């Protein structure tokens, strides 16, 4: 059996197994497609590198050089196991779903960002909150960014009332208000994209800071915080329009 035949055989087996599992309700087709792809990639890699088993070394053999990773009998299963685990975990974690018919992609994409935004801000703010004096001293720019996220902002709620909430929450509520206005035809997609871009910028900065503060010494230069003009969603206008339509 040559490499192509081996890969085709594995591909067929994976399709059959994935179909059977999906039919039984275990995961969906996209999840198993991802897992199958990962396994197939490993098989292809294995076959293309001809990682056949190393002959067992004789006890009397003289070791003249250190084994390379591809020669080490111990390294192979370990590397394969780690890569296979990584592929399986990644596929199980991500496994993107297709949009159902009738779902507005603009709204679904906004809601996907909303789903990720809150835990992102939770993570970055709780990281700073565990040792505020330490971060203020060792990484003042990071602490300043967190303080910027904590500054109270006035935002309109869905019921028309206005309240003061931290900026990290105000950004999300603003996007939610714009999304609801868009769904009811009182705001355009440009308004949605503007609010989405604002929130995305804050999320990206938060992610960048998480990478910086968990992996490196305090940076000499820090990313600049968002300018006040970035926070330009006219939430009051949208709230007023929502009220006027509701009554």
């Amino acid at each position, binding site marked *: 059996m040559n490499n192509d035949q081996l890969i085709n055989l594995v591909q067929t087996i994976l399709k059959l197994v994935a179909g059977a599992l999906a039919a039984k309700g275990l995961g969906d087709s996209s999840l198993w497609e991802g897992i199958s792809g990962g396994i197939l990639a490993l098989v292809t890699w294995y076959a293309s590198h001809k990682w056949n088993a190393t002959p067992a070394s004789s006890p009397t053999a003289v070791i003249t050089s250190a084994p390379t990773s591809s020669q080490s009998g111990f390294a192979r299963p370990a590397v394969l196991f780690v890569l296979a685990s990584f592929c399986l975990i990644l596929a*199980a*974690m*991500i*496994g*993107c*779903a*297709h*949009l*159902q018919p*009738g*779902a*507005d992609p603009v*709204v*679904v994409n906004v*809601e*996907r*960002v*909303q*789903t*990720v935004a*809150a*835990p*992102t801000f*939770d*993570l970055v*703010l*709780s*990281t*700073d*909150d*565990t*040792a*505020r004096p330490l971060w*203020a001293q060792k990484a003042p720019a990071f602490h300043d960014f967190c*303080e910027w996220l*904590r*500054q*109270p902002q006035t935002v309109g*709620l*869905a019921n028309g009332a206005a309240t003061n*909430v*931290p900026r*990290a*929450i105000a950004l*999300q*509520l603003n996007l*939610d208000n714009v999304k*609801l206005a868009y*769904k009811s035809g009182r705001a355009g997609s440009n308004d949605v994209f503007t609010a989405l871009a604002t929130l995305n910028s804050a999320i990206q900065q938060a992610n960048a800071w998480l990478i910086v503060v968990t992996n490196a010494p305090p940076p000499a230069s820090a990313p600049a915080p968002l300018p006040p003009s970035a926070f330009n969603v006219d939430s009051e206008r949208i709230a007023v329009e929502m009220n006027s339509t509701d009554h």
Partner: protein
Amino acid sequence: MNAALALLPSVLQYLPAIETGAEHLWAWVESLRTAAQQSSEWTTDQETQYQQALLARTGSSAYQPDAPKA
């Protein structure tokens, strides 16, 4: 052995922080999975839950700004 013992107090000191961080990190990973697997718009109940969860965060200590310096 001595080096490991010397590190022990530091590990114990940072254990609560690691525990807190791990909890939020796992929630973040879960949110990525949830977002990737979303295939339709939120229902009214999900929308309400989302807004309530956001407003509930305002009471969290992590979201409170530093006390003004005297």
